[in-house]
C-alpha cells in the first residue's frame, strides 16, 4: 500500500506537469512562425481536378482520401469490437415508449432523412458531405430507439452487416478500380472524379449512419441490464 503522502505528492506532480505542458504549448503557439507551405493556395490551385468545388470535401475525398479510407476501416472495426464485447443478455422488458418522444420522432425522422440527403448532395459545393449526413442519419436512429420504435441490436442480420460494410466496400472498389486505367490507388480520373466522389460519399453516409447508430443501439435495453458473466 502506497502511503498517503507519496500519493498526494504524485498528484501534485501530475498537476504541475500538466500545467507546465499547457504553458509550454501556449508559448509554442505564440512563437509559431507562419507556415512555409501555403496549403490553402495549393488546394485552391488544383480544386478543378477533383470534380467538387468545396475545398474540405476535396481534401477529404481526393487529396487525402487515403486517410478517409482508413478511417472508414477504423469505424467498421470499432462497431465489430462493440458487438463482440456485447455479453449474452437475457431478454429484458422494453420500457413503454414515451408518447412525446414518439410524436417527436414521427415528425422529425422523415425530415432528418431528407436533411441527410441534402447534406450529402451539398457536400460537393458547400459545407456538408458524408460525415454530416451520416451523423444526422445516426441521430434519427437514436431518436427512433429512444422512442421505442427500434429494438436493441442483439446480432445484426445480413442486410444490416452489409449496410455497415457498404461504405468501405464501395470505397475500396473505386480506389482499386481506377488502377485498371493505369493510375495509382485512389487517383480518380478528372472527368469522372465528381461522380465517383458522390458514389463513395453515398455509401459512406449509409455506413457511417448505421455505424454510429449501431454503437448506441447495441447497448442492451435498460430493463436487460443483467449481463451473464460467463
Amino acid at each position, binding site marked *: 500500500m502506497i502511503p498517503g503522502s507519496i500519493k498526494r505528492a504524485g498528484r501534485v506532480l501530475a498537476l504541475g506537469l*500538466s*500545467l507546465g505542458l499547457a504553458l509550454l504549448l*501556449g508559448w509554442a503557439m505564440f512563437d509559431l512562425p507562419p507556415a512555409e507551405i501555403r496549403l490553402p493556395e495549393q488546394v485552391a490551385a488544383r480544386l478543378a481536378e477533383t470534380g467538387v468545388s468545396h475545398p474540405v470535401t476535396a481534401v477529404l475525398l481526393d487529396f487525402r482520401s487515403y486517410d478517409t479510407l482508413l478511417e472508414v476501416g477504423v469505424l467498421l472495426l470499432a462497431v465489430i469490437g462493440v458487438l463482440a464485447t456485447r455479453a449474452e443478455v437475457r431478454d429484458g422488458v422494453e420500457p413503454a415508449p414515451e408518447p412525446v418522444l414518439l410524436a417527436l420522432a414521427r415528425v422529425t425522422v422523415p425530415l432528418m432523412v431528407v436533411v441527410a440527403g441534402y447534406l450529402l448532395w451539398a457536400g460537393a459545393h458547400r459545407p456538408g458531405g458524408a460525415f454530416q449526413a451520416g451523423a444526422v442519419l445516426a441521430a434519427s436512429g437514436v431518436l427512433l430507439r429512444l422512442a421505442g420504435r427500434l429494438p436493441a441490436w442483439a446480432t445484426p442480420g445480413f442486410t444490416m452487416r452489409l449496410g455497415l460494410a457498404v461504405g468501405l466496400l464501395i470505397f475500396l472498389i473505386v480506389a482499386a478500380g481506377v488502377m485498371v486505367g493505369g493510375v495509382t490507388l485512389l487517383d480518380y480520373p478528372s472527368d469522372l472524379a465528381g461522380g465517383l466522389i458522390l458514389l463513395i460519399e453515398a455509401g459512406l453516409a449509409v455506413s457511417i449512419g448505421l455505424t454510429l447508430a449501431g454503437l448506441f443501439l447495441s447497448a442492451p435495453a435498460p430493463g436487460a441490464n443483467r449481463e451473464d*458473466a460467463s
Partner: protein
Amino acid sequence: MSGALLYALTGGVLFAMGLAGMILQKHLLRRILAFNILGSGSFLALIGLGQRGGPPDPVPQAMVLTGIVVAVCATALALALARRLLSLTGTMSLPGDEDVTD
C-alpha cells in the same frame, strides 16, 4: 492576439486538462471523458492554428472531421469495454488502482 490564436490556446489548455484527468482519475468513465476533453483540445488547436493567417485552411479542417468520427468510435468502444469489465469483475477501475464499484 487574434481570435484564431485564442482558439488554439484554449485547445492547448483543454489538452493539458484532459491529460491531467487521465492521470489523476481512477474511474474509467471519468478517464474516457478526460480522453475526450484531450482530443477536443487537440482538434481546437488544429483548427485555430489552421486559420491564423487569414482564410481557414481546408486541410486541418478535413483532418479534424476525420478525427472527430474516429474519436466517437473509440469512445463507444471504450465504453463497451468498460461495461464488459464491470459485468465481469464488478469494478470500474483498472487492475492496480483502488476498486471503484459504482
